[in-house]
């Protein structure tokens, strides 16, 4: 199944990890443009699904790519999958955006917690992230619709589990149970991944 996915998914058949590494090591602009061509539209879609208007979404996409350019030297293809690394930057950018929004609305705060893209993997945790990503996509593809909906609403629409319950008119316990079933399937993948170490 993994092989089938590799044939059908562009991200698996194209070495975006290599492109990201090349941007980091060589400031490779052609590789950077390839990353932009693949990820920019996806990131804009990601932000728009979270309720941002197209203009704001595109502004955040631009800022994400500036961060990708500046931080790419921290990317280690042996430790991280390109999509996970870029997703983490995009998610942090969204949190920063929302915090600035809060800051505008409320009294100034003395302190805001920072979130850095964690690269501090110990030797025992050097998981092969690309394999993990491929396996995870397999699982996501075969999740029952009700479980899949909850995962997508959590990651893409920015809804908490309580908000998912309200939106779908189901009890919070049902949301947690469905999510738990999905996570249990995914944890088997993670466990396999850890056993590969």
């Amino acid at each position: 199944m993994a092989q089938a996915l590799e044939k059908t998914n562009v991200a698996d058949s194209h070495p975006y990890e290599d492109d990201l590494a090349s941007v980091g090591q060589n400031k490779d602009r052609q590789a950077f443009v390839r990353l932009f061509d693949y990820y920019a539209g996806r990131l804009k879609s990601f932000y728009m699904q979270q309720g941002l208007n197209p203009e704001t979404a595109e502004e955040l996409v631009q800022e994400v790519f500036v961060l990708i350019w500046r931080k790419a030297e921290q990317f280690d293809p042996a430790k991280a999958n390109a999509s996970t690394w870029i997703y983490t930057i995009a998610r942090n950018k969204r949190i920063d955006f929302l915090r600035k929004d809060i800051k505008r609305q409320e009294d100034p705060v003395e302190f805001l917690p920072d979130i850095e893209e964690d690269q501090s993997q110990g030797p025992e945790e050097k998981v092969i992230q690309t394999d993990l990503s491929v396996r995870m996509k397999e699982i996501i593809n075969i999740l029952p619709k009700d479980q899949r909906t909850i995962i997508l609403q959590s990651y893409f629409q920015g809804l908490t589990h309580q908000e998912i319950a309200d939106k779908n008119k189901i009890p919070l316990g049902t949301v947690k149970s469905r999510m738990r079933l999905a996570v249990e399937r995914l944890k088997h993948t993670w466990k396999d991944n850890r056993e590969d170490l």
Partner: protein
Amino acid sequence: MIGIPQNLTFEKDRTYDAIMMDHAAGNLSCAQTLVIDSYISMNDSARADSRHYLAMGGALLDSECKPSHISGVCLDNVMAMIDTPDHSTQSTRPKNAMDCYFDCDFDLLEWKTLAPGIEYYDVPVPCQKKEKAQLLKMAPGKSVLEHSHDGLELTLVLDGAFHDDTGVYNRGDLSVEAGHDHAHKPVADMEQGCICLAVTTAPLHFTGLLGRVINPFIR
């Protein structure tokens, strides 16, 4: 000891999963994010869990995001921005949570007395309505009154240890409490005491005799 004690209930486990997923999805409040960020930085098992949930985000970005149309000037803008070193996207973030709390001497903070042997420090992080973020310092052997929760309570042990009926929580362990069904009474370690970071989404509900007297005054 891994992230949460094994004897936690099924409800705690699935609440923990929901929190870690909400964290990776960026859906937690600022205060809750502070707790989980700190937890991840202190606990190897939590760090592994977090990476997996982030990997799920990466996999979804790949396979579930139908690309939106990008305007023609977007790439031009990006290329211009990367050649401008002083662009405003450079991080102006304040101190990291770790710098603020774990590299400082806790004695330097302006603690306030909650009860004999128990002090608190309001963490200056943006909180939502009814949400509270505090550092709690408990002297050796001291305990908080037995209480349950209208909402969610995340408690991360920063120093020392405490125990309740669900287990012993050492430095880097996270206690997850949710709902009225379970009342607990945290007791600080007899030798070390305990300093923890606690974020609650709603006021505690004290359950003992004394607690029932106090409840009306903490709403």
